[in-house]
């Protein structure tokens, strides 16, 4: 394949991933209220003075790094006149663009593993065919895997941390494959990316151990040293941000670990059995999970850093009482990339043509087509199985409620909103106004400041509001907005 063809292919896969994510943004409900109340709302509150504060922020258990990053975008986008739900949507689109870095990592990772695997294979492809095939498969799987697509719209720490860790593992693999001439820049990038990944999600720490092990096994001591120093410096920045914002270096991390691990506070949010992630994974891919797991194990000599990171993270998370699917998001791209690399290495020599002097026979062409079809079919099977068994996430956060909330924010005569489920909305950022939005309370129906109520159609709240002379003015899906009749 020519360089131009490869670039076109890469751009097409990225565009495919982008389109899928845009569809998810418009059609799929947000995965977690933490997106709004742990990261967006604190930033918005700092800007506007209005916002709901969760107990984690009251206790200082959250770092300001991600809200700071998002807050900078909020200020910048506000200069373009964006506010309320339009601002929220623009931020989510930006997040989708950021998430495409994972597609690129899928390409590079799939190619890296395929190259490493084909060198070790007796049927090694003579050129970079394996890398190309592995790269295409890796990028396509990362672009289209449903769970990655939906989590790519959520501004949670998991996604940027996953991007950092996956890139760090990919560059580590490339560095090891380069031989002793490996650049210092790559080593520095590994450290910085790991520092970023761990700073955002300390639970991803096993990845740092695996990278260290990988560099040690390849005797890249100098690279290990550089990665360690840059990683420590990057992590140190998170500590400095804590010092400025909470008054103590790494104070939010210390508080977080103290609450969740030492005091066992995580159990307050639910206790699941140790095998919960296994059940969840098999529910996500009931037909293709075995295929996704077996292939990387077959190519374990090349995939071990990816497989070891995924298994050690899952083991660590399984020891914790409280479990959520997003905590283990990192495992999916690692397994998908490992799968793509091994299959790429295996498929490439089977697709090899005889060259211009030796035209290949019809039988050989059929054989090539069959191999290609089988491998692409398996990859597509993983995506389709994931799409067919996408059952939503732990929270019921209907999109219609966010749209209704955004609509109230655009009403000039609104001065207060009674809300049936505050956690099911986008907070003050999504409202775009500073007037009170308070959890529905029938005694507040008499308060003249509350002009609007957002409730579920047919609910008791709706009846109470109507009996207090509120009338329906807007509806979306299962939700209605009622307005105080005397103001009509």
């Amino acid at each position, binding site marked *: 394949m020519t360089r131009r063809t490869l670039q076109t292919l890469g751009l097409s896969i990225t565009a495919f991933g982008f389109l899928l994510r845009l569809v998810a943004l418009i059609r799929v409900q947000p995965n977690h209220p933490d997106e709004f109340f742990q990261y967006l709302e604190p930033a918005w509150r700092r800007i506007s003075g209005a*916002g709901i504060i969760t107990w984690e922020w*009251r206790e200082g258990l959250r770092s300001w790094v991600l809200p700071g990053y998002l807050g*900078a975008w909020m200020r910048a986008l506000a200069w373009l006149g964006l506010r309320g739900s339009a601002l929220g949507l623009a931020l989510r689109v930006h997040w989708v663009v950021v998430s495409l870095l994972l597609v690129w990592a899928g390409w590079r990772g799939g190619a890296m593993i395929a190259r490493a695997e084909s060198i070790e294979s007796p049927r090694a492809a003579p050129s970079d065919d394996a890398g190309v095939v592995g790269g295409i498969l890796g990028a396509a799987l990362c672009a289209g895997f449903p769970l990655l697509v939906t989590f790519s719209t959520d501004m949670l720490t998991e996604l940027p941390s996953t991007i950092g860790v996956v890139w760090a593992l990919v560059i580590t693999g490339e560095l090891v494959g380069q031989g002793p001439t490996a650049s210092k820049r790559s080593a520095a990038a590994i450290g910085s990316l790991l520092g970023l990944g761990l700073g955002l999600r300390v639970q991803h720490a096993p990845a740092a151990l695996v990278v260290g092990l990988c560099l040690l096994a390849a005797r890249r001591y100098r690279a290990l040293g550089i990665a360690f120093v840059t990683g420590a410096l990057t992590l140190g920045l998170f500590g400095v941000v804590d010092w400025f914002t909470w008054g103590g270096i790494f104070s939010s991390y210390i508080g977080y670990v103290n609450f969740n691990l030492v005091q066992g506070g995580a159990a307050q949010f639910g206790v699941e059995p140790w095998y919960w992630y296994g059940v969840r994974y098999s529910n996500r891919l009931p037909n293709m999970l075995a295929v996704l797991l077996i292939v990387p194990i077959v190519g374990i000599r090349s995939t071990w850093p990816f497989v070891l990171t995924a298994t050690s993270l899952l083991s660590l998370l399984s020891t914790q009482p409280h479990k959520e699917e997003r905590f283990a998001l990192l495992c999916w791209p690692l397994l998908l990339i490992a799968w793509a690399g091994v299959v790429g290495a295996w498929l490439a020599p089977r697709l090899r043509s005889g060259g211009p002097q030796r035209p290949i026979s019809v039988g050989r062409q059929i054989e090539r087509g069959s191999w290609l079809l089988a491998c692409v079919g398996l990859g597509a099977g993983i995506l389709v199985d994931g799409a067919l068994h996408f059952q939503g996430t732990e929270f019921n956060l209907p999109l219609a409620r966010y749209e209704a909330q955004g609509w109230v924010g655009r009403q000039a005569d609104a001065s207060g909103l009674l809300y049936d489920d505050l956690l099911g909305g986008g907070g003050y950022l999504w409202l775009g106004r500073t007037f009170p939005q308070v959890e529905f309370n029938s005694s507040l129906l008499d308060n003249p400041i509350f002009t609007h109520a957002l409730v579920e159609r047919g609910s008791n709240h709706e009846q109470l509001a109507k009996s207090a002379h509120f009338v329906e003015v807007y509806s979306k899906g299962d939700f209605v907005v009622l307005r105080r009749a005397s103001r009509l």
Partner: protein
Amino acid sequence: MICRLRTAMALVAALVAGFWVSGLVAFASTRGVLSVTLPRRRPDPPERHNLASWDLGPTIRASSYHDDLGTQHHPAFLVDGRAFPDPIEKWASSERDRHPWVEISWREPHDVDRVLVRHAGDREFTEYTARNYRIRCLLERGVGPSVDVKDNRESVASHAIECQRARGVRLDIEPNGPTEIVRVYEVEAWGL
């Protein structure tokens, strides 16, 4: 072609980064103060009236508010005119705010003669009533006359203040203790 594409992409990336860094500087230097302006529902009556009433479209600014998920004691509650409010319908300052203040301003200048403050002691525990505070009159430019209140024990405290062409009033309230917050149900500013 590829070279030109790369140059264009680098330029776009630099512009985006510059845009974001400008936003970061603005964000870091921001300390948002809650300000809410209620829609005006009726014109001011010709007789003496409560200038801070919710339906005259006042603007309320506050240094902070207690903004827990279930209990948001928003400063807009200060002007809702509720005779028998629910405990949620009060302004409460944040625990971290050791110098709480609130400003209520109206749309045109008016002469103020009295400010009435309904403290939490009126509806809850008497010790919730703010002891020490200062009421200041806000003018078109700067600050007008003020009243310093010391060791207040009245849960509904009425303070005379003569202020011509006032645009609003400001209350600087000292919390009753180092870990206490401020709780006020209503502020009324009477005048013409």
